[in-house]
């Protein structure tokens, strides 16, 4: 039996590991499609579309979060070339898929280490899952 903690976590994009990651999280939800008909007294459903999204916080140490931020914070328009492969790992386990950075936030405050927060949305199914 093995416990995992923050020291086991990694965040990789397009094969390159991001340094100074403070935290990441991922969430997967499935829509439900109602199939209840008039003769039934309990609602029934079938699975609908799945949505996977996540977020991560990276300390701004050197250029650690730069490659993620510049996907959306730039002078050029965001295009399909900004879709990247993100791999969230812990130990030998991981979840990987094509993602669009949907939000990038930089914060700088007195008494705090500058950090970047990103949110991302999977496009398509995960390309690799090991839980």
């Amino acid at each position: 039996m093995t416990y995992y903690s923050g020291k086991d976590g990694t965040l990789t994009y397009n094969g390159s590991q991001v340094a100074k990651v403070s935290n990441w999280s991922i969430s997967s939800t499935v829509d439900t499609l109602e199939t209840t008909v008039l003769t039934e007294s309990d609602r029934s459903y079938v699975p609908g579309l799945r949505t996977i999204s996540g977020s991560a916080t990276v300390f701004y140490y050197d250029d650690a979060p730069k490659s993620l931020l510049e996907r959306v914070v730039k002078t050029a328009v965001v295009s399909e070339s900004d879709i990247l492969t993100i791999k969230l790992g812990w130990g030998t386990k991981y979840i990987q898929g094509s993602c669009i950075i949907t939000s990038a936030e930089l914060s700088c405050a007195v008494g705090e280490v500058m950090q970047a927060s990103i949110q991302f949305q999977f496009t398509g199914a995960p390309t690799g899952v090991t839980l």
Partner: protein
Amino acid sequence: MSTQGPDFPNLVPTARSMSPGDFAGKTFRSQSGIEARVQYGNKAFDKTMDLEYSNITETDAALIHDHYLACNGTLYYFGLVEAPKSGNSTFHLGDSNSTNTSNRYSSAPFGLRYRYAEPPQFNSVKPGRMSVTVKLIGVLDS
């Protein structure tokens, strides 16, 4: 008399709405506001029945599509089996005003025949699932 098509597919709808139609007649109103009504027929007509099928399988949606074509669109009348009328058994059965079999969602006891009022609407929801809206009208057939 119009040609009869095959019975409607035996599918229970997600939602249904029905309007019993109205009798043929004419209303006259005098300048004083008094109203007189003349009845021209003894049967209500233009009974409408709207059926909604949400998130049904493509196979079931195809049954409705093919039935519409088998009825030559809005031209042929057809029988409505029990499943599309199910779910309100107390309302559906026991119409004391009807001299025939008392099924309020049916058309036959009232001397009417259902046909498509307009082409059914098919909406794709996700692979394998579709939603269909069907509008029927009960008309006095010649």
